[in-house]
Structures are given as structure tokens and as C-alpha cells.
């Protein structure tokens, strides 16, 4: 467009490319790079999906049959040998649930309090130290947590290996997960809500208890459920502190407590079909339980989001 066109007021008629209304055409090389990036991204996604789908497919196809048998959900493996078909996994399911529940009862209050301290009160050196400790705890391999509890519980105090010892190790693993997720949720609560509450003459502790935590509540619960899902699949503490047994055990302090991971471990070297089927069944059951927890976590966060 020349200056003459503009001054003549006829600029619109002489636009160089009618089809794009005067804008430049999209450059060919940029479109190509866009396509290339798209292909690379999808390839990476599919590669990442292969092992996931493969695992789910093998476990479900091999474990589904035994899970559909009603005995699976009602019977234990008491008196059943590796040559015999039958029995169930209820002892291991119960053990896993009891230990997970006990872990949550111990870990959640500590973790939520710690997160509240870090977000609402923590200033200076103590807060930095606590935050650093949580980071360290996050990085502890589960086998180290298990051996630490073994050293304290069995070697130092001379107690038996019982379900409670397992939960102690799981508490160590669950606390940092819940601290971090709760911290994130508390930080999402706008500061304006805290100030609005202070300005009404509400003390700080009450502001936290009645305004901040309720606002973040569904997020905190989601974090707890995801933390639970993580520790339910944990295996090292179970192998070291909670050996397998075939009978139902509900006492955390009295003797061995069977769990799904130890049930899988127990029979994993078996070659006889009835035992092999039970291994797949236990694996599929564990995956199902963790999946349900994950779904529950997501539901809570969706339902609990502030309504408008």
C-alpha cells in the first residue's frame, strides 16, 4: 500500500491479498514445524501408554476370572494349598484396608497440622527446617523407612513383627505426601478471605479452623485419598515387617497380618495353576482398590469445589 492510496482514501481496494484480508499468509515452515511437534508429542504419548495398557491388560485378563468367583470376596486362604483351586483374598484385602486406615489415622493429623504450621504460622529458621525435613522424608526410599522401623521396633525394643509396625513405616511414607498436597491447597486459599475474617474481629486460629481449612477441605481430602492410594501399593515395609499369613487377622498388635502385596509375593514363584491364578487375582484386586481410591479422590475434589 502506498501513501498515495492512503491519502486518496482508497486503501481498502488495493490490499495485496484478498483471501487473507490483507494479513500475511501463514508461513509454510511454521506449519511444518507445528505438524512435526504434533507427531513427536503423540508418539511420545503412545510409547508411554504401551507399558500401562500392557500391564492393565495382562493383569485384568488373567485376574478377572478368579475375582468373579464369589469366594474371592468372602473366604481366606486358610487350609488351601497350591494344588487346590478355591479360597479367597478377603484376609489380604482386610489386612490392606486395616493397615491403610490405621496409617491414615496416624499420618493425616500430623501431616495436616504440619501443613497448617508451614503455610499459616511458619516464619524463619524453624519453618525452613521443617520444610527441608519434609523434603528429605519425601525422598526416603520405602525400604529405608521399613528398615528404620525394623531397627527401632524389632532390634531395639524387641517387639514382634506385627501389623502396627508396618503402619509405622507407612506413616513415614504418607506424611510427606499429605503435607505437600495440603500445603498446596492451603496456599490456594486467597489471602483476602483471611483478611476479611480478621477484619470481623475473628482470631487467627479461628480464621484457620472456620474459614481457611473449610475452603481447602475438598482439596485436602483429595490429597489424603491420593496419599492412601500410594501407600496401599507400597511393598517393602510389608515384606520386612509384615510377613504373609493365610488366615484372617484383624488385630494390628497380635501377630502377622496378611496384605495383598505380600499375598502376591508369597506365590509369585509358584508354577501350579491354582496358585498362579491367585497371584493374578490379588494383583488385579489391588489395582482395582487403588483405582477406586483415585476416582474417589477426583470425585471429592470435583463435588467439593466452591459452588456458584
Amino acid at each position: 500500500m502506498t501513501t498515495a492510496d492512503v491519502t486518496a482514501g482508497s486503501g481498502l481496494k488495493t490490499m495485496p491479498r484478498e483471501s487473507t484480508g490483507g494479513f500475511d499468509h501463514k508461513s509454510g515452515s511454521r506449519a511444518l514445524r507445528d505438524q512435526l511437534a504434533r507427531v513427536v508429542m503423540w508418539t511420545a504419548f503412545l510409547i508411554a501408554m504401551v507399558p500401562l495398557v500392557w500391564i492393565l491388560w495382562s493383569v485384568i485378563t488373567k485376574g478377572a476370572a478368579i475375582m468373579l468367583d464369589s469366594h474371592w470376596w468372602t473366604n481366606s486362604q486358610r487350609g488351601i494349598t497350591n494344588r487346590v483351586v478355591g479360597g479367597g483374598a478377603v484376609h489380604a484385602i482386610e489386612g490392606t484396608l486395616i493397615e491403610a486406615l490405621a496409617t491414615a489415622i496416624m499420618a493425616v493429623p500430623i501431616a495436616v497440622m504440619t501443613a497448617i504450621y508451614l503455610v499459616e504460622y511458619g516464619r524463619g529458621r524453624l519453618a525452613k527446617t521443617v520444610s527441608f525435613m519434609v523434603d528429605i522424608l519425601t525422598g526416603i526410599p520405602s525400604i529405608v523407612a521399613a528398615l528404620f522401623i525394623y531397627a527401632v521396633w524389632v532390634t531395639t525394643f524387641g517387639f514382634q513383627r506385627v501389623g502396627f509396625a508396618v503402619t509405622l513405616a507407612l506413616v513415614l511414607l504418607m506424611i510427606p505426601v499429605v503435607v505437600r498436597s495440603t500445603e498446596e491447597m492451603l496456599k490456594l486459599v486467597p489471602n483476602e478471605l483471611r483478611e476479611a475474617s480478621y477484619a470481623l474481629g475473628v482470631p487467627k486460629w479461628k480464621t484457620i479452623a472456620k474459614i481457611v481449612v473449610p475452603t481447602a477441605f475438598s482439596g485436602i481430602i483429595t490429597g489424603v485419598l491420593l496419599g492412601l492410594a500410594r501407600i496401599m501399593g507400597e511393598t517393602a515395609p510389608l515384606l520386612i515387617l509384615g510377613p504373609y499369613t493365610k488366615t484372617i487377622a484383624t488385630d494390628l498388635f497380635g501377630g502377622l497380618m496378611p496384605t495383598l502385596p505380600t499375598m502376591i509375593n508369597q506365590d509369585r514363584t509358584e508354577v501350579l495353576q491354582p496358585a498362579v491364578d491367585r497371584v493374578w487375582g490379588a494383583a488385579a484386586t489391588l489395582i482395582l482398590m487403588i483405582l477406586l481410591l483415585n476416582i474417589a479422590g477426583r470425585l471429592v475434589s470435583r463435588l467439593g469445589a466452591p459452588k456458584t
Partner: protein
Amino acid sequence: MAKRIDVKDLSIFYGAFKAVEDVTMTVEPRSVTAFIGPSGCGKSTLLRTLNRMHEVIPGGRVEGSIHLDDADIYGADVDPVAVRRTVGMVFQRPNPFPTMTIGDNVSAGLRLNGIKDKKALAQKVEASLRSANLWNEVKDRLNKPGAGLSGGQQQRLCIARAIAVEPQVLLMDEPCSALDPISTLAIEDLIGELKSTYTIVIVTHNMQQAARVSDRTGFFNLAATGKPGRLIEMDDTQKMFSNPTERTTEDYISGRFG
């Protein structure tokens, strides 16, 4: 029940940084006082010291004194929580509690301070919403979340929430800056009604608003960025906008800077 505010030789700090220097002023009861001035001159900061909200920020502290009638609100054994019950505040952005209904938002201050009598609470909710000119719009949906209201309604809800605890003084930090002209008008009318009961201090960037709603106006300015803000001049709004004593006040009001 409205109270007089006496500020004397007040300097306000953020850590080592002095944000406001040597402010001395008197705010009369049952009147509207507006603080105007360019951004960063410390008018909001000063407002937040009047109910001890400034010290909520890490490193926030003050020197000097503020008296509410005869009581020193920065006295050694004064509980800041008690000060805030007497001096309420409305914020720039409407901030209803998202987990609470409209009714619960209004009664939040009372309930969180231990009042449980359902009947008394319901009466207080209605009275406060009526004072905030919001009752007719929300009376049929007191059980709905406060976040469903429009911005202007939310701000009036926040005003209702603030006056439900029966403060003596109401501080407003740019209460209309996030609102459209119609909602702004509603809030300005409301301020005019509320001043018969409360001492009102309002910070505003809108000079027409200051001229419309306030009885007295304080003009703040700072010498340069990084220097503390100062109270340049404070007088009757009429005089401030027609015939100010200070040259900078006139320059600011006539739009020559800021």
C-alpha cells in the same frame, strides 16, 4: 456509637522501609472522610493501621499513636482482635466466604465470635442486609452461596457482613474500584446512609467519588518513588476541591499529575 479517630505523629513501616511518615489527623464521628492521592502514597497502608490490619503483613509495624475517642488502639495490652471488632473493614475486591451461604456470610462475624442464638442471628442478618440495601434482592435466596451474586451485590454483602458485628468505624479500601458505574452508585448511596450511624473512612482513586461522598478529604503524596508518603493537606471536601491551600493538592485534583 460512632467514634472519633485521632492519629498523632504516625509513621508506618514495612520492615526497614518507611511507607508513611508523620501523619497527624482527626477523623470526626458520623462523617465520611476520603483519602486521595497517587498510587504508592500510603493511603491504603494508613487505612489498614486504623484497625491494626497492617501488622498482619510480616514486618509491618507503626510508630506514633492512634486514639479511638480516648482509647489508644496501639496500647501495650490492647488485643488487635478487639480493635478489629470495633473498626470494621470493606476491601477493594468483594470477598464473600466461598464455603458459606449469603445468610451465613452476613452472620459469620457473630457466629465465629461465639453467638449461637439462631433467632437473634436471623434478625441481625435481615437488619444488616436491609442497611446494606441488599435485603430485597437476596431475601429469597439466603441459603444460596454468596459467590453467585453479581460483583456489586457481593460488595454490598461484604458491607452487610462488616456492619453485622456493629462496629463503630467502617473503613473502606477502594470499595468501588472493581465495580461498574451502577453498582458504584448503589454503594455511594449506601455510604451516604451509613454515615448517620458510623464513622466512615474511604480510600479512593476516583476524585469525583471523593467529592461526591465525603465531608472531609485528606490528600497524600510522596516526594519521589521510594520516599515515604505524607499527608499534604486535609480539609473540608468543598474547600479541598475548590480552593485548596497547597499547590500540589490543586495540581493533583486538576489532573496535572498522578
